């Protein structure tokens, strides 16, 4: 990371930056930054029109439950009977001013809904990322060190198995084993009812349960939260652990063949130190950039994991809102996810460019 900051500071300052092709890092960053907006714009537009092809949100959500005249009145009130393009531009204007509307099914401001469930998903994502790193990196090191031997073959197979197992099936197996057969861990949910209650009564909750529990000194709740967090984190973590394993393995094999590693070995540096320090640190750079790209996979997996474990986050709510045909809420969630993905890709692109100047064009 030290090289990263060193490389970044002089370049961003501008005039002294080495010019390469059409421009330096400053220009590259600017272009990449501006590309965030078309990405979000395209996805929002796509979802808006896809949702509206099938009719207006009021009929979709309440059709059949209200008499036609009342339905018409509500459609008119909300302005859904106007031309679609008028509504589209109005919608864009609303987004630009930060007004995302109110959900149709449970009448909550979309921003508040996103904040509540977004933190739950963030908590799940952090937990599973920790699991993925704890499993993926050491196993990748072993595979690289024992290359083309039995451990390597087994670990490569394990990595493919991680990819081949859908998160919901992994979740089901974990539930059957650790919750039903052994009875060690709770079957589903983010916390037991008493903990949920205690968390909702906090003065300024961050929404991330373990953080709130530590801050309020409620260690009994912390234990309960941890017990609930294990299975979802493992189920989603295994999905990405396979990717990390292979990444670490491939990149470590590259650096393990370098002369300076051989030199270290001849100086008597232990194999363990060679793998975990000398060869691992330079291999870390490509790993960090690819890690950022895993965010899309993680978000997709989160929808399935949350449904499996009734973890009330964005993914769980998205499935609920889609079933209720609550298009306002769905558009809000898609918008947030698009922003997350676009911003992550931007950060990853910049990291890659700063680390490796050849990436720029």
């Amino acid at each position, binding site marked *: 990371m030290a090289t990263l900051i060193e490389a970044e500071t002089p370049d961003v300052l501008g005039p002294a930056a080495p010019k390469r092709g059409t421009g330096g890092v400053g220009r590259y960053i600017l272009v990449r930054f501006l590309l965030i907006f078309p990405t979000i714009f395209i996805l929002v537009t796509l979802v808006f029109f*896809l949702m509206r092809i099938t009719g207006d949100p009021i009929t979709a959500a309440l059709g059949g439950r209200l008499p036609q005249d009342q339905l018409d009145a509500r459609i008119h009130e909300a302005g859904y009977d106007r031309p679609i393009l008028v509504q589209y531009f109005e919608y864009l204007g609303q987004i630009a001013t930060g007004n995302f509307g109110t959900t149709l099914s449970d009448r909550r401001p979309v921003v508040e809904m996103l904040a509540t469930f977004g933190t739950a998903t963030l908590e799940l994502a952090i937990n599973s990322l920790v699991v993925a790193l704890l499993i993926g990196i050491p196993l990748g090191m072993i595979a690289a060190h024992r290359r083309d031997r039995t451990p390597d073959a087994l670990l490569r197979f394990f990595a493919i198995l991680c990819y081949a197992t859908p998160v919901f099936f992994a979740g089901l197996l974990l*539930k059957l084993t650790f919750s039903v057969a052994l009875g060690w861990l709770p079957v589903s949910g983010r916390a037991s009812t008493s903990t949920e209650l205690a968390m909702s009564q906090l003065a300024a909750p961050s929404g991330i349960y373990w953080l709130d529990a530590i801050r309020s000194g409620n260690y009994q709740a912390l234990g309960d939260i941890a017990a609930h967090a294990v299975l979802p984190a493992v189920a989603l973590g295994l999905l990405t652990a396979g990717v990390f394993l292979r990444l670490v393995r*491939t990149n470590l*094999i590259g650096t393990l063949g370098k002369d300076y590693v051989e030199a270290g070995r001849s100086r008597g540096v232990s194999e363990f130190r060679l793998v975990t320090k000398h060869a691992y640190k330079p291999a870390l750079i490509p790993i960090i950039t690819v890690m950022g790209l895993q965010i899309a996979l993680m978000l997709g997996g989160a929808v399935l994991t949350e449904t499996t474990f009734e973890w009330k986050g964005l993914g769980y709510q998205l*499935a609920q809102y889609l079933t209720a045909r609550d298009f306002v809420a769905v558009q809000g969630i898609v918008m947030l996810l698009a922003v997350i993905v676009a911003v992550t890709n931007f950060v990853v692109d910049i990291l890659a460019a700063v680390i490796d100047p050849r990436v720029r064009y």
Partner: protein
Amino acid sequence: MSETTTAAVPPPAPRKAPLLDRLPVTSHIRQSVGLQRTMLLIGITLTGLFLLAAMFAPLLAPYGYAQISDAAGTFPAQAAPGGKHPWGTTVGGYDVLSRVLWGSQTAATVIVVSVAMSIFVGVALGLLSGYFGGWLDRVLVVIADAIYAFPSLLLAIVMSIVISQGQSSFWGGILACSISITVVFVPQYFRVIRAETIRLKAEPFVESAMVVGASSWRIMGRHIFKNATRTLPLIFTLNSSEAILTLAGLGFLGFGIEPTSAAEWGFDLNKALADASSGIWWTGVFPGVAIVLTVLGLTLVGESMNDLNDPRLRGRRAAGNKRSGKAKTKAGRP
């Protein structure tokens, strides 16, 4: 459509070899050695079993996918494996073994339809975009990148809810799922074919075709198309496994095919979730294992082909030389 599928299997070697050896998978078996060959063969076996189950599901399955009774009476609900129902029955009284077998047919159909559609659209757009360039190319690239970056399952969910609209017939459901998966895959084919087209456009044989006076369409359709589609069997295999996972994900979230119109593994797993807390394992484990084995088989075939296509990654047949074994590396697929 038929042109796409046949042309996607080009002879990999210029020298004349028996047709059997020039087909993608058989040529790969011949090239492989050791661990790579084992993985490829396991993959082929699993994929073969899946295809056999899909083709002969009507003969193999003891009951229909939506059958809840026979001459002897109504099936028991949640019956444990054994007797008349070797893999037990679900809460709705469906026979688990039958539904798993029929499910392979649904999965295979969705793979074929969705991948065929994605190849058709993706290859066409990729060729156009790469060959003509300009503003069309830029617009398509930005759109494809935006779609590519977004979580694929979410996009498929949104698509399926738009398309299906309560459609629950067999073909209606299959088409809805396939189109949803297609939207996710098109950018991938588009990227690969576009990159190849741009590379090939600079090749001398394309230039000479231009000099001779061939039309743009002829150059694209014959010269570039046949060369750019070499990598398609590989993407096809890897995408098939992704298609199964997406289909299962859709089914699991309840946006797939209705249980009365077809058997679908993901849907069965969704229903099995409620059984799990009461210790009923057979409704979930069997369809789940079916998904894992199918995806595993397809992935192993695809990965092995990927390694064997790249000479740097290919393990060499060398006796007693330890170094040569070390020459093979596995490409990390990010």
